[in-house]
């Protein structure tokens, strides 16, 4: 190689390790999830219910501490059919991701939709969680395998337009 050839890249190996702790709200919520419960938190200022809870109401900038259980069923507020593979995601293509407004919550929760034709998925559709067997529950969101249609009538957009 000529020394006039530009150096186009170098490799600098680097590795950093972190020990992450998620804080009291996420910990309480994860422990509840391991018991099959979806426990969010309510803002003392604006009464919005957050699931999953982060410990704060981003709208008001105040701490949320009072727990509120939300349902494991809800309404699709938006969705996407994913047809391209992605690193670290071990799902058969295509698959459907959705924002689901769980009954009792004020912000949508991220989930997968299955047991449904892709062209039948729609905004306003009612869905319910399909859980892993109880013996497999752990401290993680994968306790819910996916959501499936309930067959209930669709919810009109007007009823959830403030919760997108």
């Amino acid at each position: 190689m000529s020394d006039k050839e530009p150096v186009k890249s170098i490799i600098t190996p680097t590795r950093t390790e972190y020990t992450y702790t998620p804080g009291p709200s996420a910990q309480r919520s994860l422990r509840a999830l391991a018991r099959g419960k979806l426990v969010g938190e309510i803002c003392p200022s604006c009464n919005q219910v957050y699931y999953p809870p982060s410990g704060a109401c981003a709208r008001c900038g105040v701490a949320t501490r009072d727990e509120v259980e939300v349902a494991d069923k809800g309404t699709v507020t938006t969705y996407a059919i994913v047809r391209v593979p992605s690193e670290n995601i071990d799902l058969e293509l295509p698959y459907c991701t959705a924002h689901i407004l769980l009954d009792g919550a004020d912000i949508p929760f991220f989930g997968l939709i299955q047991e449904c034709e892709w062209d039948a998925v729609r905004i306003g559709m009612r869905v319910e969680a399909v859980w892993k067997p109880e013996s497999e529950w752990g401290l993680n969101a994968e306790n819910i395998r996916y959501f499936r249609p309930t067959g209930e009538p669709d919810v009109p957009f007007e009823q959830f337009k403030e919760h997108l």
Partner: protein
Amino acid sequence: MRDVAIASFAQTKYVRNQVELTEVDMIIPVIGDAISRSGIPKSEIGFYCHGSSDYMAGQSFAFVGAVDALGAFPPIAESHVEMDGAWALYEAWVKIQCGEVDSALVFGFGRASMGKLRETMNLQLDPYTLGPLGIDSISLAALQARALIDAGKTSERQMAEIAIRNRRVAKDNPNAQVTGDFEVEKLLAEPTIVSPLRKHDCPPISDGISAVVLAAGNHIGRGESKPVFIRGIDHRLDSHQLGGRDLTRSPSTKLAGERAGVHDGPVEFAELHAPFSHQEVILREALGLGDEVVINPSGGALAANPMMTAGLTRIGEAATHIAAGKAGRGVAHATSGPCLQQNLICVLEGE
């Protein structure tokens, strides 16, 4: 120049390892405290700016999470620096000087305990020639300390005495992390971590948050404590190539000090962000601070060194010192980068 005052200062107690709370959990009470003591209603805060580094949390865009603490609805004007909160204060000060706003909340935060700080700090080095050597933050500081000792500007004994003084006065600082009375002979009998640095020459690893509210115009004087005015502020940097610098000197501190007008009046005290004991010697020389100047009434960074806000804490502690009537005029300093690479000087004065 518009008069800009530090209206209030709030901080957490600094601890080695805050595993109970998230950053947002920590930020909410501190900024709430700073805003309420500023006397400025939250709805009238014109600008928010904070300093932090995603490398502390090991998550990209971790800094955005902090906005959850601000109550950003209806929308607020907000900015971030990937630097110590002292530079966030500088950005806010510029915005106030431009006449865009009359008040600002500034804060900095870090939970350095989540990673291995000595290794995390390697990632700030240039990725081509210096970073790949794997050199850590204490080793770099040790190179500087060795050069300073060889130049006859300090000694291991003087460095120990600096650590002792800072940690002794920190006994009066309820938020400090490492405090107490130590004996120089005992400290010098301890082994070195990276020669010539011993444990006492190095800062603690600290998790914590601090916040300042700046006020201009009609907002000045609304707070619980007397306003403390920023009479000059400037920041400068030296080369990031450590081989290209004389590590025993800090030209950037000297220049920033001159531009900020450090000696336009009497300097009664200085809050110096010197994480390593020998760096206090370099900063004193660069700023021309004689023996009559009280250094670090708070105990400085050797008593608590919250990454990304230890510099802002120096400004807040200096303002608190003046507001309490303990001094009329003083200097606060913040540093960033390896071996005092970048330096900010803020001259503060009471009414």
